């Protein structure tokens, strides 16, 4: 069912379409107010009458509870998740949200299966992170800092406000139909994430990782915005789709109908891609990623590796799949370039991960490699469109669904691995794989979970990581069998077939360093200062089990998620 709504005018419709975002916004407001409620009174001047204003002063016992912000955040995210999922149950609703009406309408947001799926993925990831952070926030961090100060819930409120703000930005990213709107969403989320990365400001690593990540992020998003302005100069608007009522020509149509490839749009698009490439940490914009991952606390590292990366990929899908899809053979060079970037990205990520001893950095490099795999999928998608009518039917949708599936299941095992690190990190920062040594002796269940996450990252069946790699390669292979009806010779295959082979060989390389973690955990003696059983930290354990269940169940039967991803991919 499709509904067209002018934003914030026609009564309930906007609220219904944007229910999760509004919930998040309310959550932020509550988070600002509730932890500050106290017994403050205001004396009416010249009198002795004191009126309770409830804001400030000595705070109530309930409102100064250190776990209150976390509970608020969890409740908010759960509500938003429920709203996002429910709006797509049954026959999916689609809303077109415009600013202005009639001849001045600009399509700003589109709420559909795709945006709801990605929103749900984001909310689930943030939910897991906020649950895990309940144990992490009052962590002892050096003796100089007073425990009392750490337990102070104002700081926790800051953290969860930022988390919810990033959720709002991400939601806008999933829905945006105007590139500028997209960038605004991206910036809201990024600015919150910059602070989250630097949140451990008491540690030298935290400040350093945050500063490096911020500088590279700020410059790349500025470059992206500059690209947007060039596209605006070129086209006069930044709409993705053309509008039949107003006669505005969207970027997609303008790109498709231009003669040859103009310098201005190409330059603009390249600059925009720089902004996204930083988010997905594709080579050559990957330098800040390992520093940020290892400087930030482990759950935030997980956020960078899953959610932040997914945002970048939504951008890439929007720009590459919707706007710059090549027409016929003229753009093969363009796709070839992307293919080479994907090849370099995955190989570099794996090779760098081989040489890294810090588990967090290793995960950062492995996430670079995963970005390479998904870029290979995007390349195949572009090539599929370029092949025009000869192409295998349904291969493009398959690839997009595979990318969405991969982004979704990353939340299970990548975030899970980071959460295990978060649990181990309660005994002190993790700086080398030695800190994981003997984990199996200290806590067999957690070690097994970590090992399963590692195998899943490497793509060993029957885990979720295998399913996602399988779907991705399947899509690429399906695309490359351009003329499958009659017998095919190997030489008839599209060149993207070799990208599939490259992905496989790369995942064979990657098994080296994933296994190394397993070996260290199971067969090394724990270091002197890490002999005791792991902290009980029930909340983190709970999230690890949730991730583990997800990894196993999706690996054993991914039916429902694949179907959901296919529905979502069809609406892009």
């Amino acid at each position, binding site marked *: 069912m499709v509904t067209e709504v002018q934003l914030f005018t026609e009564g309930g419709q906007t609220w219904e379409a944007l229910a999760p975002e509004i919930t998040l916004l309310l959550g932020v407001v509550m988070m600002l107010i509730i932890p500050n409620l106290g017994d403050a009174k205001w004396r009416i001047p010249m009198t002795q009458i004191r009126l309770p204003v409830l804001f400030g002063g000595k705070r109530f016992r309930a409102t100064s509870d250190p776990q209150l912000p976390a509970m608020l955040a969890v409740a908010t995210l759960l509500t938003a998740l429920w709203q996002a999922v429910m709006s797509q149950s049954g026959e999916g609703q689609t809303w077109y949200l415009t600013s202005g009406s009639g001849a001045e309408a600009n399509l700003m947001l589109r709420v559909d299966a795709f945006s709801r799926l990605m929103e749900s993925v984001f909310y689930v990831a943030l939910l897991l992170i906020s649950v895990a952070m309940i144990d992490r926030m009052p962590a002892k961090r050096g003796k100089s800092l007073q425990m009392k100060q750490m337990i102070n819930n104002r700081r926790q409120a800051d953290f969860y406000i930022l988390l919810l703000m990033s959720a709002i930005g991400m939601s806008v990213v999933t829905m945006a139909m105007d590139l500028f709107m997209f960038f605004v969403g991206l910036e809201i989320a990024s600015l919150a994430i910059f602070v989250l990365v630097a949140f451990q400001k008491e540690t030298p690593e935290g400040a350093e990782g945050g500063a490096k990540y911020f500088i590279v992020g700020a410059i790349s998003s500025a470059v992206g915005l500059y690209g947007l302005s060039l596209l605006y100069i070129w086209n006069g608007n930044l709409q993705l789709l053309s509008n039949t009522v107003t006669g505005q020509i969207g970027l997609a149509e303008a790109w498709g109908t231009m003669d040859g490839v103009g310098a201005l749009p190409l330059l603009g698009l390249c600059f925009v891609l720089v902004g996204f490439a930083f988010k997905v940490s594709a080579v050559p914009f990957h330098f800040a990623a390992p520093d940020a991952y290892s400087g930030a606390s482990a759950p935030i590292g997980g956020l960078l590796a899953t959610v932040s990366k997914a945002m970048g990929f939504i951008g890439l899908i929007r720009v590459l799949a919707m706007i710059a899809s090549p027409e016929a053979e003229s753009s093969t060079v363009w796709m070839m370039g992307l293919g080479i970037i994907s090849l370099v990205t995955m190989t570099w990520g794996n090779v760098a991960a081989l040489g890294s001893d810090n588990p967090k950095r290793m995960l950062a490099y492995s996430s670079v490699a995963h970005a390479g795999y998904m870029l290979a999928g995007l390349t195949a998608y572009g090539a599929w469109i370029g092949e025009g009518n000869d192409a*295998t039917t349904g291969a493009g949708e398959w690839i997009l669904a595979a990318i969405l599936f991969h982004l979704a299941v990353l939340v299970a095992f990548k975030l899970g691995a980071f959460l295990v690190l978060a649990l181990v990190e309660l005994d002190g920062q993790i700086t080398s794989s030695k800190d994981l040594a003997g984990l199996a002796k200290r806590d*067999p*269940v957690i070690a*097994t979970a970590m090992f399963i996450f590692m*195998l899943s990252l490497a*793509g*060993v*069946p*029957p885990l979720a990581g*295998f399913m996602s790699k*399988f779907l991705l*390669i*399947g899509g690429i*292979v*399906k695309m490359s*069998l351009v003329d*499958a009806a*009659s*017998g*095919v*010779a*190997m*030489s008839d295959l599209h060149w993207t077939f070799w990208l*599939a*082979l490259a992905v*496989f*060989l790369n*995942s*064979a390389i990657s*098994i*080296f360093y994933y*296994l*190394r973690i397993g*070996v260290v955990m*199971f*067969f090394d003696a724990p270091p002197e200062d890490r002999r005791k*059983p792991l902290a*009980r930290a029930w909340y983190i354990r709970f999230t690890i*089990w949730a991730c583990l*269940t997800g990894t*196993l*169940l999706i690996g*054993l*039967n*991914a*039916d429902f998620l*694949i*179907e959901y991803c*296919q529905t979502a991919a069809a609406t892009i």
Partner: protein
Amino acid sequence: MGAHQNANFRMGEREMILITGFFAIIAILTYMFPSFAETNSDGQIDWITMPLVGFPIIASGVLMAFASMATRRRKRNIEMPIKLASLFFSLFMLAITTSLFFGILESINWDFSTFNSYELEFSYAWNTTLGVNWHVGMDALSFSMVWLTTLLLPIVMITTWEEKAGWYHHPLILMMGGALIGVFVSLDLFMFYVFWELTLIPMFFLILKWGGSERRYAAQKFFIYTFTASVIMLLGIITLYFLNDGSFDITELTRSSQAASDRGDVWLGANMQNALFLMFLLGFLVKLPAVPFHTWLPDAHVQAPTSGSMLLAGVMLKMGGYGLFRFCVSMFPDALVNFQWLLLTIGLVSLVYGSLVCLGQKNLKKMVAYSSVSHMGVITLGIATMEPLGFTAAIFMMFAHGIISPMLFAVCGSFKHHYHTLEIGAMRGLARHSPFLGVFMMFSWMASLGLPLLAGFVAEIAVLIAFWKAFGWWVLLPGLTLAITAAYYLWSMQRTIFEGGLEGELPESLHGESPVDISRWEGSGMMIMALLIVLFGILPWIVFDMMSGYSLAVFTGILGFGGV
């Protein structure tokens, strides 16, 4: 007080995990398998899904989870129950397969095979969007491998009964068995690949936990080698999947291949079929292993514990041979004809190279490992003959080697265990110090060399006959290689076992301790294997007939030439 609280907390955690795990297993089971007691169109009961595959994997998982939660002291107490439970499960599986073989559970006559038709065939929907099914079934080929696996499991457990940390060791063997049987019974390519990779994980842990001093290197090399090869095979699987409109079904794929060759066409086109053949071949040759992809095997064998070596040599290598038959032969007949020279070359090179390198070895286990390489070369040769007898011989070789090589490794393991060395020259007069070990060593070596009346002989002579039929006097090359190696081999063994006068010569690694003979457990395991070797040497037709039926069915079904 603190310690007490801590203990309480750990108990609570354990209970919670147990309960969660239990419910998760129940949920998965009820979700994945509609009903165990369902019968298929032939009125057969599904003896495969749960009893042979699901049960051992789940049971071993539960047993290990149980063990991992016990404290060190309690582990000693639960060691015996866990080992007994594993042994019981494996005997249960053996009982099922044996009764299936003798037609007790279901009236199946394994000796008469039709190409691409399977007994106990069951199919449950697994992943409907991708068209993946839990599709199991057995023909004579897979049944002989399944029977071999179930035969070996209790033997391995008995032989290595006294292995340390038995609470993990025996369940791992059980899990290994389930995964291996899963490979052999899968009739769905996706499922096949899942089990193919699943076998790596228990073996990885077996080598890492109980292996020798270089075990890390060996385990990782083993994992990475076979993983790399199998991802290339996976690329082939995916390509095959899309070329056939999204079908993973092995029976269906084989049927369409058969239909194409009946029409006189080349299935999928000659070029594509060759490419797919090579992709699959690579995966199987690395697993087999054939020269030049064999380098992981000596490392893995030398470092693996006895049980790991026994399973690795006994069944895991056969996955390669099984895959060659199931895919390379049955699905890509035209490519098989095209690449007959390749198989022939690889087979001959593996045979000759394996035997020659074997002669130069100082390390007992390495020697056995290279003899495995040369025996696997015999399997490749059997396929390369393109004769029904050659196929039969290759399958019988898989079966016979599956009993003989575990015995070799059991002997090596006991030798290492009691004499703390594996060096061949370090010891003289074994028969005097450890008479039982000496006897078993001599016997297993003879079996490995192909002494008449023992199982290995039947396989080797059958391959040679088929080779003679196919290539004439070229048979002298493999024949003489086998004979010469045998002679040298016997001589070197004889030095270790009998020479050295009455007192013999004890290895330095013993540090003056008095040598001991094999334990009762080791002895009973070896005894059973020796009896089986003699049994299948004297009465090979017990399984030979069904393998022969299978080979003929393959020829009449798809290869369509050769004949008897």
